[in-house]
């Protein structure tokens, strides 16, 4: 009798799992949250909010995001947003990343190439990640030392950078990135936002494929 009982339980579990797999399995509040303050002009984008000063951002940029971005649905543009309020040099980091992102775009790199070998943004970002997280560099001597790490990684001079950051396009991009703060406040960084409205709960991500499924569902919402 007990065996029959177990079988019934197993069957009902299988049934639940089957329906969970086929129907919309994602729920608001556990898998994603709707942002109280949506990011403006972000329809058709996957925004990733990150900070050089965050160990999980480094982990995601090593293992997850480079594998995720090429598989994103075609009608979704990938956009990295650097959070300037985290880390001692968050502001300087944002300025440099904004300059480099625009430089990448000018060089003809698409959003899918931002994890490719040609991306200057990627080079600088990785230089900061390894310096900060692997070598425990904290640039105590000041912002000049901090900037040098990134500039050296991409072969840019300080004069070039100082000139480039006065570009109104850089300023406009930095202004857009200011929206990062309200996203990061919800559950920390990295933060992935679909269409500027739906923030993925990182805690509920269990695989890249699962994440893609969720992104696909959220983009049609």
């Amino acid at each position, binding site marked *: 009798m007990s065996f029959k009982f177990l079988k019934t339980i197993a069957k009902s579990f299988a049934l639940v799992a089957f329906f969970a797999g086929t129907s919309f399995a994602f729920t608001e509040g556990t898998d994603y949250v709707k942002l109280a303050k949506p990011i403006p002009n972000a329809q058709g984008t996957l925004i990733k909010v990150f900070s050089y*000063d965050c160990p999980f951002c480094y982990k995601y940029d090593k293992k997850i995001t480079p594998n995720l971005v090429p598989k994103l649905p075609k009608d979704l543009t990938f956009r990295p947003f650097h959070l300037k309020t985290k880390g001692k040099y968050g502001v300087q980091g944002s300025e440099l990343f904004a300059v480099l992102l625009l430089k990448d775009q000018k060089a003809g790199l698409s959003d899918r190439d931002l994890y490719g070998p040609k991306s200057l943004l990627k080079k600088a970002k990785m230089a900061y990640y390894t310096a900060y997280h692997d070598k425990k560099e904290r640039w105590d001597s000041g912002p000049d030392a901090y900037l040098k790490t990134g500039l050296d990684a991409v072969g840019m001079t300080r004069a070039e950078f100082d000139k480039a950051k006065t570009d109104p396009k850089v300023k406009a991009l930095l202004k857009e990135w200011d929206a990062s703060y309200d996203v990061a406040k919800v559950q920390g960084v990295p933060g992935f936002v679909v269409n500027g409205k739906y923030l993925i709960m990182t805690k509920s991500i269990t695989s890249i494929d699962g994440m893609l499924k969720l992104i696909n569902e959220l983009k049609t919402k």
Partner: protein
Amino acid sequence: MKLSEMIGNFRSDPVGSISQWQDKRFLWIFMAALSLFMVILAHSVFQVWLYMRPCEQCVYIRLAFFAMAFGGIVAAIKPSNPALKIVGYLFAIWGSFKGVLYSIKLDKIHHAAHSEDIFGVQGCSPEPTFPFHLPLDKWSPEWFKPTGDCGYDNPIIPDGAQLSSLQKAITDFYSEGWYLWPPAHFMNMAQCTVITFGVILLFLLVAAVCWIVTLVRKRQSAAHEETSGYTGKLA
């Protein structure tokens, strides 16, 4: 009271004995002292002296210890006073319970940060959110502002800091982060605090239950005496 006498009492009436113990100051003071010791050790020794910066969960754990210390001190003022003791229990049970939860979360983050399996946890918030929205990090940044990275507690020595030979030796010993026994990576900080909080929580719950049971028993026997006295008169 002699130890043998205590053991004898405990054997004949465990609930009553525990109830008696929590009416005394000693255990409350002990819990408060242990909690304060943990926080001061974390802050003054590991954070200030050895440059191991606290992360978000670590500052929440500090709050949990402070709540327990506060509860212990309030109850120790006069443990036989029920009002003081209830306040003591509330703070101490709340603190140790939250402490267990914070520590489990920190352990998960620690595991994710130190392995390839990063799914299932989220990063640290750039700004801590304390219970009841207390702005503790604004009131006392030295104690409650997270300055470390999520899941990491390695010493980070500022450029130009002159370390004494003792500081050098200890920071080298903990260079891979805080462990009860660093060379073997045996028991990280979260695992140690979860045990501390868990044991204290267990003791508190047992003590509270014994206290309540004794109170109920006393009331019942008082009521019983009253009725038997009444029937005695009638007869």
